[in-house]
């Protein structure tokens, strides 16, 4: 399978270890990555809130770039997934918007058709065939590790455009990361208010870092209560919120029990044999010692 990789802006610049994880795991799972000169997605919490049409047109440009190569696209970020998928959805449904975007892109010699599929990494990996390969090729097991997931709101809301089929509005979460973590041998643990937003946008957009941290603190509290030893995320903004956020919170509250945070790509790459250095795990603010317990699988 050949697919374009949409790294977004945050990962290649701020968390290149996550990109390294992706490039490590892909060939081992039969995925060939094509590099395309994508720009910013642009962010659903950023440009979309400021200028909807500019957001839509810029996202459509990115979609054109993968469409020109005849490839589907995989992202590493819930925000990027949301922007690309929502744009595809809007352009398929709304004729006025479609004409506006067509007209604008035509002047750049681009034509948007909407033929590509947009995957978020966890749902690409949670396909049966790839999960089977993952189980077969992993050299480390996460057995005994109690992991919970935080998907990032934009991966699954609004459900009308982000999910296939109906979902319970009171528990709208996907299960792709659970499927992957189980394939890695980890023990998946649920926690209270699991679908609550991480709160990152409050500090990124409005500069309300105190308020933003209070949301993170609530989630950390529920995670601790459920006995999580590690958290898996699918979004670099959520990662910052929990990783850097816990560091900031623990400076104020030394008694806070912190837990390491991982991008799902890091956990998969680690299970496939990547070393901590390859993944730049030392850049994590909360020391990822939980992985030390992961025992090598025999055979």
């Amino acid at each position: 399978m050949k697919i374009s990789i949409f790294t977004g802006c945050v990962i290649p610049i701020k968390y290149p270890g996550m990109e390294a994880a992706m490039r490590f795991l892909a060939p081992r799972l039969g995925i060939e990555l094509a590099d395309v000169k994508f720009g910013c997605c642009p962010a659903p919490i950023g440009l979309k809130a400021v200028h909807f049409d500019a957001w839509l047109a810029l996202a459509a440009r990115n979609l054109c770039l993968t469409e020109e190569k005849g490839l589907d696209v995989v992202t590493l970020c819930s925000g990027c997934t949301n922007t690309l998928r929502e744009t595809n959805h809007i352009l398929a449904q709304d004729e006025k918007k479609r004409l506006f975007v067509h007209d604008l892109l035509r002047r750049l010699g681009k034509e948007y058709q909407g033929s590509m599929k947009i995957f978020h990494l966890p749902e690409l990996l949670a396909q049966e065939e790839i999960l089977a390969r993952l189980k077969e090729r992993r050299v480390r097991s996460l057995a005994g590790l109690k992991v919970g997931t935080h998907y990032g709101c934009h991966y699954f809301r609004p459900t009308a455009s982000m999910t296939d089929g109906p979902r319970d509005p009171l528990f709208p979460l996907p299960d792709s990361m659970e499927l992957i973590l189980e394939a890695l041998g980890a023990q998946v643990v649920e926690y209270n208010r699991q679908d609550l937003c991480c709160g990152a946008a409050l500090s990124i957009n409005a500069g309300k870092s105190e308020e933003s941290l209070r949301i993170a603190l609530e989630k950390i509290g529920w995670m601790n209560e459920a006995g999580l030893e590690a958290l898996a995320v699918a979004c670099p903004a959520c990662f910052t919120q929990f990783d850097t956020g816990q560091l900031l919170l623990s400076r104020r509250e030394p008694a806070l029990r912190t837990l390491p945070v991982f991008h799902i790509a890091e956990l998969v790459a680690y299970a496939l044999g990547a070393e901590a250095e390859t993944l730049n795990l030392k850049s994590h603010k909360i020391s990822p010692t939980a992985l030390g317990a992961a025992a090598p699988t025999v055979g």
Partner: protein
Amino acid sequence: MAKALDLYDKEEFYRCLQCAVCTGSCPSAQVVQGFNPREIILRYMLYGEQEEVLRDENLWACTTCHACQERCPHEITITGLLTHIMNLAARRGNLPRNLRETILLMAKTGWSVRANPHSDKVREQLGLKPLKRPNSEEIRMILREAGLGEIMEL
């Protein structure tokens, strides 16, 4: 000016019962004094206090998590309305500095995060290829043509 609302059915907002499921579901309402999606619908749609709402800096506390919209018993596109309101507020100069700077950076470089020598070095150490710069000229042209110039100088 009202382009963003094209996507949303205006009438639906008048079905709001003021039940406050939206506010009860809102992460920001929990922690930001003075931010409350139910009240925004009441003031903006029903009381007609549009000018006041558009000047309210707390609007930007919305994380666009869509929890309100998903849980609304009348399926009102609340996040859609908030997005529309934020779009209009930005045109009137009510736009947080952080957000303005991020968008200007994107218009300049194509990315919302500033590339820096440290990240280049780490990428090299990890065996990753140097960053491929996007075509920022094309990106700026799209932003201008779409009308972002109404909000900031590009």
